[in-house]
């Protein structure tokens, strides 16, 4: 009995941390796509993209750091697929844990493209499946213990000077072995970008971005019952930068919360950051 109570105590302490994981595992970035939102960019046929990244987030006493490696392959000029391999460091108050996070497979298909002189306007759909491969038995856990699916639609326009994107994603979260199902999420992103100085082919190139990232999460369920202090709405303002030279890119951004309307008693997000290095091979 003591052991059962101990397990229950540990499980309930894990709930907030498992729910926080949802905040970080959503992005798949290719080339000139937004840092936190998604864009319609894919990869040239036969191309390989290697992208190590660091993603951090803080919410009250919970901190998450994810070191990820994203590998993408260009199946055609309009269709790419890849894998995301994360390693996580989780900290909740005085407890911390680290280990392999949940592996994801993703694919993106650009179904519409309108090319004009010095500009490209495109739209794509994205699908991503995150598997329950990470370790969820740590305290705090580094894996969610559930298989989740993400479906996204994105539009993008890029020219020699201006960029704009709009995207929407729906994330359907699965149930873990303990009977916890994080609430489904809807993410909406509006992004603008500017290249202050149009540069030549082999010159270093800089584009500045400003993203508006909206997130709506339903309440999590535990064995069929809603958990009151989960889910809600958040809106972030996210400045970012791409710096590129030939086939190498550095992308970085920070998400600053503008509005937080979370259900029940929850800590608001303090910030999230993302740094990506990317090579096209």
């Amino acid at each position, binding site marked *: 009995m003591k052991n059962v109570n101990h397990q229950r105590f540990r499980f309930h302490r894990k709930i907030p941390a498992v729910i926080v994981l949802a905040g970080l595992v959503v992005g798949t970035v290719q080339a000139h796509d937004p840092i936190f939102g998604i864009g319609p960019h894919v990869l040239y046929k036969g191309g390989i993209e290697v992208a190590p990244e660091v993603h951090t987030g803080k919410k009250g006493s919970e901190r998450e750091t994810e070191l990820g490696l994203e590998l993408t392959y260009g199946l055609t000029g309009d269709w790419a697929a890849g894998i995301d391999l994360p390693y996580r460091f989780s900290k909740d108050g005085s407890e911390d844990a680290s280990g392999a996070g949940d592996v994801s497979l993703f694919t993106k298909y650009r179904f519409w493209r309108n*090319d004009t002189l010095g500009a490209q306007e495109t739209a794509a759909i994205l699908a991503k499946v995150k598997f329950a491969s990470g370790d969820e038995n740590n305290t705090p856990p580094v894996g969610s213990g559930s298989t989740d699916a993400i479906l996204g639609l994105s539009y993008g326009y890029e020219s020699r000077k201006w960029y704009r994107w709009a995207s929407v994603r729906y994330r359907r979260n699965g149930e873990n072995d303990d009977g916890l199902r994080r609430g489904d999420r809807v993410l909406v992103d509006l992004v603008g970008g500017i290249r202050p100085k149009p540069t030549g082919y082999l010159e270093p190139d800089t584009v500045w971005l400003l993203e508006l990232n909206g997130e709506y999460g339903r309440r999590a369920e535990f064995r069929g019952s809603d958990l009151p202090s989960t889910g809600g709405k958040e809106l972030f303002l996210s400045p970012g930068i791409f710096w590129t030279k030939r086939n190498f890119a550095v992308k970085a951004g920070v998400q600053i919360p503008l509005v937080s309307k979370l259900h029940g008693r929850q800590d608001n997000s303090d910030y999230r950051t993302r740094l990506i290095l990317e090579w096209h091979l």
Partner: protein
Amino acid sequence: MNKRIALVIMSMLWSAMTFAAGTEYRMRVDGLACPYCAYGIEKKLKAIDGVGKIDVNLNEGLVIVDVAEGTRLTEPQMKKLFQDSGFTYRSMTETPLDGDAGK
């Protein structure tokens, strides 16, 4: 040592002569907005035997390629190459690289 230097010079001269007798292609391509995204074009063109210097003029939507004598780039080949790179091929002009020809 002298033999090595002579070999390098001869090889450079041979290379220059080969491309001097080659062809410059100027391809009009739509969708070229950023230098990073154009890398796929460079990679695909370099996979073709005989392709030498490649330049991309983003503002004018031009991809300029010098090829060695005996190498020909065709419209269907370029249409597919640019499609696979994620851009739209529009047209192409070719100019011989042998001195005054084409002027």
